[in-house]
C-alpha cells in the first residue's frame, strides 16, 4: 500500500498520447472488404487511449497496488467466505483445450463428442455436489449466487404452475441477504418477511401464523447471517411442505457445514451453492461467480435447458428436450471456467478435506469470538458456526466510535475489515468470517489489533475517526458521488 504522498490518480484516458500504440498492425493477407457500406461506418474511431504496452502494464500494476485481496492479507468479510484460491485452478482453466473451446461446438452434428472432456467436468461436478448436499441433480447454469436464487424461484414457480397451485408469496427471514427478497420479487412473488426470535433464529411461532395456502415457499440460509444454525430447520421445512410449499436453501453459508450435514437431509427441496465461496474460486473483485442449483427428484423436470446426461454407451450428451423445464437462463452451460476451477478444488479436497474445511472454519470463528467477546458487544453469546456478529461496546459508543471507525482502523493495521452494517437486525454490526485457510497466528494478530482498537476507542478516539492513514485515499465522499454523478469520462 502506498503512502499519502502519492500523486493523484490519473485515468488511463488521461495518459493517452496521440500516435502512440501498444499493438502493431497485422497486414491483411486478403485485400480489403468490399462488403462494408460507407453509410454505416463511424466518422472517427472510438476515443480509446493511445499508449505503449509498458504504459498499460504500469497503469494496471499501479492500480493493483491500490487493491486488497486474499493474496494480500486477512479478509474476514462475513458471509463472503474469502478463503484462499488455489493457483493450480488458474493454470488448469487456462489450458487451451478448455479455454479455447467454442460453446456452439456441441450443437453441431455429433458435436457432443468434440467436447467430452468439458462435459465430463460438468457431469462429475454435478455428482460431487449431489453427494455434498443430498440433492438429486444440479444445473451449473446460474452465473452467480443471486442468479442461482432467481433460477431456484423460477423452478419453484414452474412446480406450482405444473400442480395448478395458485401461490403468491415467498417467506424470507429478516436476517436474509438482500438478494433473497429481490430474487423472489423479480420472479413475480410477493415477499413476506419473517422476524427473528430472541435467539437470532427464525421465529417459528411467527412463521406458523404466516404460512398459508398462498405460500409458494421459504428461502432460508443455514447457518444464517448471524452464524447461527437453526436446530429446528427440519420443522420449518415440514411446515412449508404441509401447504405444498417449496423449501429453498441459500448455500451462501455452506462452508460451515460442508461434509458434515446436507440440506437435503434437513428437508430442503432446492439448494444453490456459491462456487466462489465454499468451493474456492476467486471472487474477482465482484464476479465472475457461479451459483449451481440442485433440486430433489420431483423437481428435476424443471431444471433449465440443457442438462448433461450419460448415455447407454457411456458417452456424455446435452439434453435439450425437457418439456417442463424453466427454459434457458444462461446462453450455454454456465460459467464453465468457474465450474472447472471448483471441480479441481473438489478433487483436491476429497472427503477428509471437506471435514477439515468445516471443522477449521467453525473452530477459527469460535476462537476469534472467544478472544473478542469480553471487549466488544456480542450479538448472541453462544456457539457460532463459520461467522459471528459483534458491535462496538457501550463504552466505545459513548466516545462516538462506530463500526465504520473500527473498520477503517483495521485497514491501517493491514487487515480487510469485516462486513459492516449487515445484518441490519443488529445495530452497528460487524460480521466476521475468518475461514479455514487462515492460521492461528493470523487470528491472534487480528485479535490483538481489535483489542488495541478497543483501547484506543476509549483513550484516543480521534486516532480511529481519522483512519485510515496508510491508504492512497481516506473515506471518499459518497454523498458527493451520488449528487454530482460522474460515472464516465467521455
Amino acid at each position, binding site marked *: 500500500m502506498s503512502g499519502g504522498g502519492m500523486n493523484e490518480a490519473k485515468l488511463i484516458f488521461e495518459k493517452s498520447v496521440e500516435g502512440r500504440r501498444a499493438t502493431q498492425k497485422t497486414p491483411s493477407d486478403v485485400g480489403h472488404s468490399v462488403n462494408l457500406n460507407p453509410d454505416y461506418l463511424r466518422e472517427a474511431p472510438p476515443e480509446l487511449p493511445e499508449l505503449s504496452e509498458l504504459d*498499460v502494464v504500469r497503469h494496471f500494476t499501479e492500480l493493483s497496488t491500490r487493491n486488497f485481496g486474499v493474496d494480500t492479507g486477512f479478509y474476514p468479510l462475513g458471509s463472503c467466505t474469502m478463503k484462499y484460491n488455489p493457483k493450480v485452478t488458474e493454470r488448469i482453466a*487456462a489450458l487451451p483445450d*478448455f479455454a479455447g473451446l467454442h460453446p456452439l461446438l456441441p450443437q453441431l452434428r455429433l458435436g457432443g463428442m468434440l467436447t*467430452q472432456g468439458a462435459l465430463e467436468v460438468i457431469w462429475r461436478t454435478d455428482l460431487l455436489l449431489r453427494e455434498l448436499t443430498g440433492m438429486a441433480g444440479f444445473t451449473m447454469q446460474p452465473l452467480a449466487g443471486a442468479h442461482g436464487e432467481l433460477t431456484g424461484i423460477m423452478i419453484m414457480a414452474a412446480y406450482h404452475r405444473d400442480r395448478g397451485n395458485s401461490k403468491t408469496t415467498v417467506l424470507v427471514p429478516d436476517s436474509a441477504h438482500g438478494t433473497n427478497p429481490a430474487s423472489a420479487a423479480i420472479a*413475480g412473488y410477493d415477499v413476506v418477511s419473517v422476524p427473528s426470535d430472541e435467539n437470532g433464529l427464525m421465529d417459528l411461532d411467527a412463521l406458523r401464523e404466516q404460512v398459508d395456502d398462498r405460500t409458494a415457499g421459504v428461502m432460508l440460509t443455514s447457518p444464517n447471517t448471524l452464524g447461527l444454525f437453526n436446530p429446528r430447520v427440519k420443522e420449518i421445512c415440514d411446515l412449508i411442505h404441509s401447504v405444498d410449499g417449496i423449501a429453498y436453501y441459500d448455500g451462501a453459508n455452506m462452508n460451515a457445514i460442508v461434509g458434515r450435514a446436507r440440506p437435503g437431509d434437513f428437508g430442503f427441496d432446492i439448494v444453490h451453492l456459491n462456487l466462489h465461496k465454499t468451493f474456492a474460486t476467486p471472487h474477482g473483485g465482484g464476479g*465472475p461467480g457461479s451459483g449451481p442449483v440442485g433440486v430433489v427428484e420431483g423437481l428435476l423436470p424443471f431444471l433449465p435447458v440443457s442438462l448433461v446426461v450419460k448415455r447407454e454407451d457411456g458417452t456424455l450428451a446435452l439434453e435439450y428436450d425437457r418439456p417442463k423445464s424453466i427454459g434457458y437462463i444462461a*446462453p450455454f452451460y454456465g460459467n464453465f471456467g468457474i465450474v472447472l476451477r471448483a471441480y479441481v478444488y473438489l478433487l483436491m479436497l476429497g472427503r477428509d478435506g471437506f471435514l477439515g474445511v468445516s471443522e477449521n472454519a467453525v473452530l477459527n470463528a469460535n476462537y476469534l469470538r472467544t478472544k473478542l467477546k469480553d471487549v466488544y458487544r456480542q450479538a448472541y453469546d453462544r456457539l457460532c458456526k463459520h461467522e459471528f456478529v459483534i458491535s462496538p461496546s457501550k463504552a466505545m459508543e459513548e466516545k462516538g466510535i462506530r463500526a465504520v471507525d473500527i473498520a477503517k482502523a483495521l485497514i491501517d493495521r493491514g487487515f480487510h475489515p469485516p462486513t459492516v452494517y449487515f445484518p441490519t437486525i443488529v445495530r452497528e454490526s460487524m460480521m466476521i468470517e475468518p475461514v479455514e485457510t487462515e492460521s492461528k497466528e493470523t487470528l491472534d494478530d487480528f485479535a490483538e489489533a481489535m483489542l488495541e482498537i478497543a483501547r484506543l476507542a476509549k483513550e484516543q478516539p480521534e486516532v480511529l475517526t481519522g483512519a485510515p492513514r496508510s491508504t492512497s485515499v481516506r473515506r471518499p465522499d459518497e454523498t458527493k458521488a*451520488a449528487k454530482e454523478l460522474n460515472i464516465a469520462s467521455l
Partner: protein
Amino acid sequence: MPFIANTDEQRREMLEQTGLSAEDLFADIPPELRAESLDLPIGMNEQQVSGHLEKLAEKNHARLVSFLGGGFYDHFIPAAVPALASRGEFATAYTPYQPELAQGTLQAMYEFQSAVCRLTGMEVSNASLYDGGTAMYEAMMMALRITRRNRVVIDETVNPIYRVMIESYTRNLSIDLEQTCCGEGQVSRERIFELIDENTGAVILQNPNFFGIIDDFHDIAEYAHERGALLIVSVYPISLGLHKPPGEMGADIVCGEGQSLGLPLSFGGPYLGFIAGRKKHVRKMPGRIIGETVDTDQRRSFVMTLQPREQHIRRDKATSNICSNESLCALQAVIYLSLMGKQGLAETAELCADKASYAYSRLTSIPGVEPHFHAKWFFNEFVLDLPEPAAEVIGRLIEKGLAAGFPLSRYYRGMENSILISLTEKRTKEEIGYLAEALEGALEGSQAGGSR
C-alpha cells in the same frame, strides 16, 4: 489437510482456549440431521489433479480451424491481458465495500464504464452484468420500468439464444413479448412498425444482426420514440471499431456481450454483459455503478454509487436482484481496449471485415453455394445456402479438422441448408482456402454419392 494452516497442536490449543471439544463445534446440529460418511473420493495433490485434468482436456477438440461465431468469437488476446488481470490483488478481492482498499478495482471499473460509453456512443454505463443475454433481459426490464408499459417487440434477427432466454425469464411475468418473423436479412421495417403500438415499451434489435448484416436503426428509433417506446440495441463491441455506434442512431439503451474484448471462449463462460444508456435514465439502470468523488483530503477517489437502487438496500423493491458484476471480466476488457487503443481496435475490426469479405467471395464461387440474403453489407459473418442440409455438411467437415460454421436450421425454420460463417482476424488466407477446398470436396463427394 489441503489449504489448512492450523496444525493438530494448534487446534488442540485453540479448542482449549475456547473451552470447547472438537465434538462441541457441531453440537447445535441435531444428530439426526448430520450426514453419515459421505461418498466422496480421496483427495488428490496438485500433481495428481493436474494430470487428471490434462487428460480430460485432451478429450476436447478445441483446435479445429473454427468458423463458428454467432455472438461468441475467437479473437486474439494480447499476453498482457491475462498477465495483468490475474494479479492476486485484483483476482482475489471482492466487492469494493471498503473503497480505501479497492481503489484499483474501482478505478478500473470507472474506466470500463467510460470505455463502454465511448464505444457505444452513450452517456452512462454500469460496471457490467453477467453476460450478453442477461444484459438484454435487464435492458428490457429497464425500458419497461421507464415507460411503465408491458409490451416488447423483438426482431427475429436478434441472437436466438438471447431470445429464448428472454422467453424463459418473462414466463412468470405479465409481459407481452412479440417477435417478428420471416424477414430478408435486414430488419423488416414493415413488420416491425406493424408491431409497435401505444403499449410497446421496448423494441429490441441487434447490430450487426445474428446473420452478420449491418444496419442503421435511426428510422426505427424515430418511429419508436414517436410512440413512446424505447429502442434497445445489442451490439458486438469489436464491430464498433469501424461502425456507427447505436448512440448515434438514437438508441436509448445499448447492451451486449463483451467476450470478444480479451476473454477466452471457455465453453460459454465466464463472459461479460454490458449495458449503457442515457444520463436521464441512470437511476433506472440495474447493477453496480462506480462514480468519481473526492476523499476527506480532496483527493480524487472512486466509490460504488447510486446504491439505493440495489438489492442490499431496497430488498424486494430493488431494480434487479443482481448483487455483483463480472468485475474481473470487465477488467480484462478494459485492459484489452487500452492495449488495442484507438487505432488498434479499428484495425482489428477492419481485418475481421476483410477476411469475411474474402471468404464470402471465395466460398460463393463454389458451384452450388449461394448467398442466402440479397443484403451484402456485412461485418465479419454471413449466411450461405448449400445444396444440401448444412448440418450434415458441417458434420462431414469436422473430420477434416474444420468447424465450418453454424447450421441455422437449429433456430430458423426454412433455413435447412443455411450456414452461418464467422471470421476473425485470427483466420488466415490459407485456412479460408482450406475451408473452400474442403467444402467443395464435401459437396462433390455427396453429389457423386447421390448419383451412384
